[in-house]
């Protein structure tokens, strides 16, 4: 048996012995464990799985052992991922630090930073959040204003961030700040820092959405001191790192998606419940829309599969990858619009006894679907990216056409 096959056999045996049965298969919302200083377990199995994977150094299996990683070769890591997938093991924890900041630190961090910041990640001790968007820097991310002013051995940070997921529950933030206002290009005066969310002057407030409570926060900085050793990469060189982080965001989101149950509503059965089965043109049209919706979803799922197969065959998938977020979010919105149209008044309930739980869940999911085509790069930004990077269409001239 080759070394890699021995590794596969050992890994399979270990996972079978150590991954609790209850943690194999998709998880409903709220059933995933978020690592951090205030980690909470919904069950004893969750705690066991978390601790076993931590002690095996497999939170970050392919990171160097020097920082607490598992030190696996890419080949071994691929085998581990296959075996995890084979058993349908849920991730022992969700951690944006590991999935997004970690790879950037490994690439751009100093030796001291790697030791100081990566090691707690590999122990699942720190929960990370991302401080990118600001009230005036959404799609135009380079427009950030949150300032970090040099004060000798530290920076003084002032300003605010918005759309920070779990900002109120996180221990640390990786954050884009403006360190130079004088450069001609706004991308050039930006730096990446990490900061302690428990520091004085940091306040995180959850945001209520049109659908009600949300996990998004607004985060305010009032003269927050950030030690100079928390600058990642070069001063004013944060834009390159930010772009790299966003590349990791896509794979992080897809990992997250893989293990979450989709908010599943069976279109046809709901239509059956609410739609009068008449042969009026509008009812026929609604049923046709429903079928088209289901077929579009099928085409999307096949495209996800095809992308995976092309990637494994070593083919370029950038053209397909660029459409995934756009298509999925737009289809979700269309699906809920259809449901709401079919349900009529029954989709308009907010709370109370008048509307069933399912009806209220659909109303909320419909309202929430509007965040999907905006968050994580709006549909318009996705279309810009496809036009420029995939289709190679020319940039608009500065100042517009004459």
């Amino acid at each position, binding site marked *: 048996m080759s070394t890699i096959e021995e590794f596969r056999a050992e890994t399979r045996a270990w996972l079978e012995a150590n991954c609790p049965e209850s943690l194999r298969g998709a998880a409903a919302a709220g059933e995933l464990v978020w690592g951090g200083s205030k980690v909470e377990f919904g069950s004893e199995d969750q705690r066991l799985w978390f601790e076993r994977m931590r002690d095996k150094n497999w939170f970050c299996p392919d990171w160097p052992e020097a920082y607490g990683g598992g030190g696996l070769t890419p080949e071994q890591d691929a085998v581990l991922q296959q075996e995890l997938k084979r058993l349908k093991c849920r991730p022992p924890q969700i951690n944006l630090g590991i999935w997004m900041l970690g790879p950037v630190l490994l690439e751009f961090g100093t030796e001291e930073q790697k030791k100081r910041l990566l090691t707690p990640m590999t122990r699942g001790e720190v929960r990370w959040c991302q401080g990118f968007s600001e009230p005036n820097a959404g799609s135009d991310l380079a427009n950030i204003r949150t300032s970090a002013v040099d004060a000798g051995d530290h920076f003084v940070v002032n300003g605010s961030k918005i759309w920070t997921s779990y900002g109120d529950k996180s221990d640390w933030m990786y954050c884009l700040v403006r360190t130079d206002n004088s450069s001609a290009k706004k991308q050039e005066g930006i730096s990446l820092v990490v900061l302690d969310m428990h520091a004085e002057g940091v306040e995180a407030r959850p945001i209520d959405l049109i659908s009600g409570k949300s996990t998004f926060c607004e985060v305010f900085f009032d003269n927050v001191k950030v030690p100079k050793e928390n600058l990642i990469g070069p001063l004013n060189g944060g834009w390159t790192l930010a772009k790299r982080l966003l590349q990791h965001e896509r794979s992080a989101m897809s990992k997250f998606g893989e293990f979450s149950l989709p908010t599943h509503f069976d279109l046809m059965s709901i239509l059956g419940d609410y739609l009068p089965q008449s042969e009026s043109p509008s009812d026929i049209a609604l*049923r*046709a829309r429903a*079928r*088209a919706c289901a*077929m*579009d979803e*099928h*085409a*999307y799922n*096949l*495209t996800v*599969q*095809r992308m995976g*197969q*092309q990637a494994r*065959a070593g*083919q370029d998938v950038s*053209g*397909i990858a660029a*459409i995934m977020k*756009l*298509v999925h979010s737009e289809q979700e919105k269309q699906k809920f619009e259809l449901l709401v149209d079919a349900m009529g008044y029954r989709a308009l309930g907010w709370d109370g006894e008048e509307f069933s739980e399912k009806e209220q869940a659909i109303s909320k999911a419909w309202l929430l679907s509007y965040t999907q085509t905006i968050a994580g790069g709006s549909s*318009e930004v*996705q*279309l*810009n990216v*496809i*036009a*420029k990077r*995939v*289709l*190679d*269409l*020319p*940039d*608009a*001239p500065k100042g517009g*056409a*004459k």
Partner: protein
Amino acid sequence: MSLIYNEEQRMLLDTAQEFFAERSPVSALRAMRDRGDELGFEPDLWQEMTELGWTAIPFPESLGGLEFGYAGMGAVFESAGRHLSASPLLSSIVLCGSVLELGGSEAQQENWLSELMSGSKRLALAVDEGARHNPEQIALSASRNDSGFELNGNKVMVVDGLGADGWIVAARTGDAANAISLFIVPAGAEGVTLTRQNLIDSRNTARLAFNQVQVAPDDLIGELDRGAEVLNRALDRGRACIAAELQGACEELFKITLDYLRTRVQFDVPIGSFQALQHRAAWMHVDIELARSSLMAALEALDAGDAQASQLVSLAKWKVGQMADKVSGEAVQMHGGIGVTDELDVGLYFKRIRVLQALLGDADYHLDRSASLLESA
């Protein structure tokens, strides 16, 4: 389920691309149209295609085929689509060849299959009768008499029906909805009137009128009243190949359109720098990718004998058809004035795409079929 071409299929794709680019570019179709060519394809080209072995691709080895499957056929059809290359591959091999493979007697297979593959003979399938594809409502009748069957009725949109050595005709032989039988009617049979239907795509399309046409008992394919299943399976293969041809045509037309957006200057800038056009082009790309996945699933399902094959074929014909209408319409619009002139090849793509979209079921037909397959599942 594999949704990508394997190494061998990719090699076939490359060969087919090169072959059609060199031997049957769009200019060949234009020249054929301009001289009013009756046959609608080049016999020499067809002969070369048979010599390359492409006509043997879908058949089992026991019948003299290569057993290379419909993913392989898809590769050839999408290449033909890119260059608008015309040939009877759909009519004679995919449709009629499938009917004989799936339902024919040994004698029928012996008489016809090897000659179809070698190109020395050609058959065309006669199914549709009305303004839309509707194989569930066949009216042409075949009634039994002393010397076999007598056929009466009309067929339209018979692909490559002109100059064929015979037609496979779907006829009603009973009152039950699916009491359909399939007959081989040799060319020259008395009572058959053949009329050319001049379509926007300049291909070989015929109307066939059957007036007391006598057919021998030996020319019934399979069992009486039991032809619907064989017909449906053959049609599904045809639909998947049409979807492949559409996909190829649309990808090429999209490429032509992107080139135009990059180079056409108005208001002192390339028009492709306008966000209004960029976003529309990006949506075309999205639809092309989604359609491609549906197409590959259909081809694979046919080869795997998947129970979901019909559902996936309808998904593909629906998705690819919808995409094709959008991409071809946008291609004309984005080209502006020149886009509606005959001089530009864009119009030739537009017209062929519209015919393929309608052929063997447009997007609406396959949406309905998908729904009814789901109900009967």
